């Protein structure tokens, strides 16, 4: 694959006969959430953790808007909103943060881990949250562990927030060189239980996951650890784990029947489990998953799909939708391209697939209008305007909140994309 250089103005484009993929890089207005948004699912994964954004009213408003309706009496995330006084003097800002954290911990005694989450304003004023975490750890030693990471929009996009949060946990992981499989990336609890059961059936020695369900029950890592990424946006975490001696397994991501099977098989193979055992456990799932997919494939096959850059799940989803659902890929946008993490999925994309890294939303929308795809996967800010132009859309944010991993979920995953098309055929105002 040949990559054309970043350009501030005109998007550049070149094709590479080697892999048959065409990559464009764009640099313009990005219509993507910042990393703070990851808090919305991370806080649900670890109910004993609290995520305190140190930022502005914009940060608070972003997280609550992305989370949609507030359903909790008191959420396990909040924002320490910087005021003019905090900007005037960093010493005051640190004192204020200490006071506020003290009050928060008093009010919420169940909190075991407190994440101080950096934001655009805190980064720009250079409020050192690492130092603050160190200081607060001393103050509240034994009561709570205070960590920090950045979810700022100037450094992270949407799902990268989880990558940063997991990297922050890294120093706390105990060292253990025993053989184990480590599943990395937030999964829905039920989906995770299912994978655990399947791995056990295949005879894997020990399976742990990161992030854990309790922030205080962190898995160990060491030379015997094989890392299996459940989410495609954890570049930094993957590299940190490798640095700690772990081996990164290469597999497509567990979306769809094929991806899920290959993903589980890669883990089994890493522990020397024979293909016969794997087939025995997974074949019935594969068969059932394909049956569940069939009706949706009927609706999706031959339909043209445009994925706007959003969650980093675009490449594996494109692979699933083209190979298992028969969709035709018009363009696959990604906020950024990590070729190592995407290698297995990229290799399965059809020849000629147009990839676009970065974004210039106006130009991209021009391409959408010119191509008139049958379905556009995009963020909430773009969905209704595109629908109003007669273009069917699928909200991408649902993909990070719904249980979509695994063979058993393949039908549901396909249904998410088939539903907008089915709905269009149902509506008739004539």
């Amino acid at each position, binding site marked *: 694959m040949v990559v054309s250089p970043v350009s501030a103005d005109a998007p550049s484009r070149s094709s590479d006969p080697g892999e048959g993929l065409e990559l464009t890089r764009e640099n313009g207005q990005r219509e*993507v959430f*910042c990393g703070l948004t990851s808090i919305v699912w991370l806080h649900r994964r670890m109910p004993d953790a609290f995520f305190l954004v140190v930022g502005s*009213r914009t940060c608070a*408003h972003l997280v609550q808007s992305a989370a949609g309706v507030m359903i909790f009496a008191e959420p396990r995330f909040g924002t320490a909103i910087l005021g003019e006084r905090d900007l005037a003097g960093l010493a005051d800002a640190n004192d204020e943060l200490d*006071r506020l954290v003290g009050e928060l911990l008093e009010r919420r005694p169940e909190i075991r881990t407190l994440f101080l989450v950096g934001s655009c304003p805190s980064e720009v004023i250079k409020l050192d949250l690492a130092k603050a975490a160190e200081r607060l750890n001393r103050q509240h030693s034994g009561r709570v562990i205070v960590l920090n990471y950045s979810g700022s929009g100037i450094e992270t996009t949407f799902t990268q927030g989880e990558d940063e949060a997991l990297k922050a946990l890294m120093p706390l992981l105990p060292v253990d060189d025993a053989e184990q499989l480590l599943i990395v990336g937030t999964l829905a609890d039920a989906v995770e239980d299912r994978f655990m059961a399947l791995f056990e059936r295949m005879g894997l020695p020990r399976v742990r996951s990161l992030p854990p369900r309790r922030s205080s029950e962190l898995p160990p890592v060491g030379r015997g650890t094989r890392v299996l990424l459940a989410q495609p946006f954890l570049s930094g975490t993957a590299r940190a784990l490798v640095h700690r001696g772990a081996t990164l397994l290469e597999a497509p991501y567990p979306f769809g029947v094929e991806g899920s099977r290959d993903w589980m098989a890669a883990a089994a193979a890493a522990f020397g489990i024979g293909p016969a055992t794997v087939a025995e456990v997974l074949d019935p799932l594969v068969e059932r998953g394909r049956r569940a997919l069939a009706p949706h494939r009927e609706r999706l096959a031959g339909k043209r799909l445009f994925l706007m850059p959003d969650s980093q799940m675009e490449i594996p989803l494109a692979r699933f939708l083209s190979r298992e659902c028969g969709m035709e890929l018009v363009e696959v946008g990604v906020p950024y391209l990590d070729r190592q993490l995407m290698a297995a999925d990229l290799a399965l994309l059809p020849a000629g697939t147009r990839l676009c890294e970065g974004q210039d939303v106006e130009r991209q929308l021009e391409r959408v209008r010119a191509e008139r795809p049958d379905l556009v996967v995009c963020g909430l800010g773009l969905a209704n305007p595109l629908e109003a132009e007669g273009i069917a859309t699928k909200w991408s944010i649902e993909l990070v909140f719904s249980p979509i991993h695994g063979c058993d979920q393949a039908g549901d995953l396909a249904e998410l994309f088939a539903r907008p098309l089915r709905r269009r055929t149902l509506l008739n105002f004539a």
Partner: protein
Amino acid sequence: MELTLWTYEGPPHVGAMRIATSMEGVHYVLHAPQGDTYADLLFTMIERRDRRPPVTYTTFQARDLGGDTAELVKRSIAAAVERFRPEALLVGESCTAELIQDQPGALAAGMELGGIPMVSLELPAYSKKENWGAAETLYQLVRGLLKDRMPAPGTPKPDPGRWRSEGRRPRVNLLGPSLLGFRCRDDVREITRLLAEHGVDVTVVAPLGARPADLQRIPTADANVCLYPELAGTLCGWLERSFGMPVVKTVPIGIGATAAFLRELHDVLAMELPADLQIGPDGLCPAERSSRLPWYSRSVDSTYLTGKRVFIFGDASHAIAAARIASRELGFEVVGLGTYSRELAREVRAAAKELGLEALISDDYLVVEKAMAEAAPELVLGTQMERHSAKRLGIPCAVISTPLHVQDVPARYAPQMGWEGANVIFDTWVHPLMMGLEEHLIGMFRHDFEFVDGHRSHLGDGAPAGERGSVDGDRPGAVGLGDGPAPATGAAVAVEPPASTAAIATLEPPTNGGEPMWTSDGEAELHKIPFFVRGKVRRNTETFARERGLSQITAETLYDAKAHFSR
């Protein structure tokens, strides 16, 4: 630094977006990092807008900070002007850009924009909020567009009655309606119709649906109607000072306020007050009959609304209007009144004082929820957050103010203002109370053999307000012990409690160890009281006994307490 778990208002630049997005032909270039584009979804999802907000974000990244972000701003402005060809350009920054001090407004001022009027917005993100930002943007935009048309100092004020000598109908501007406001779309239609009925034309509605050229026509009207003071107060004040335009300030929500609005309008425009707006000997004016609320409220069916305890929280205008309607026009008892609009706190305090209350001025929803729980209301009127809080507390609720949820933007015509607005308000506030009563009916009938278990309404397991703190509803065998026969008519009104038992609820928690004990005859008497007020009676009686140091509560104690509280 302030801990915020949820915020009623967004940052001030979101207020500016509300103005830009409400209008046609305006574009807003916002110097902001990636992520701030989230604000688009407020419009495309909550308001179901079919177009993206007319906003170009620079979406600068950390790597740009080392380079030239000012150049990025200029590039974004040039690209936006070329692509969207706006009739007016707003240039501003969000919280992060404010810190890097690129001064996008000054950069834009130095650019060749092809004669497009440009307004630079300075909205301090660390001290101000959304409504302030919207008000300031509207004011700055109008001021910018009218700066060449200002009358010279000392020019006499135009006569608001000049329409007569000019041989035309009087005309006004409707200022303040915007996207993400509460029912603005329908209020504009309702008020325009109401004004037309009184021979008054509307010159400009702004910002909703206006173009920059429309804003330049504002001074051609005889007066301004400040429909939403949160957004239009600043602008109306400036137009009054600079152009001598009088302002109609009454917010026409509710019967009394709509009539007062029309009287103020006639007065401001030097129009003769028509007979149907004159108050008759019975204290009413015939125009009120344009709404069904006054009659519905007087009808016997509404007797059960008497003294219903209502807790009100919202933006200042809607909260004040709701308090007036609730207390005067529906016969409710307002037990709490508050706002998150600090800019208009004084007005809310005054309204609360009139009702013998202390206003709650807070933007902490947990403080609001606590006040709500302590006030033990039977109905909550609030924002989407109070709806959540009320649901948790099992109290019926109607939404009266922003911030909104998508379900607060109805497809049907549902104004809050004017005569039709009063009709809508009657229905919207009374229906949740009916639902509350149905909840009681379910409890009442659940031991009948026809009752299918699991048949619960949407209120779920939350006990209705009147019974909170009581276990009666859930105690096996308790219901039906002396509750009397089911009402013969089955109508909701038939379960109205006898007035004498509708004692004032107190804030005391339910009794337990060390507290007065109920004797068996006291307990038996308690169970003869309709269960939906039983919790209240139990609490009152226990408070009464405690205050008197009684160790036992007999049937006599219960009646003593009842007599005490019914005074």
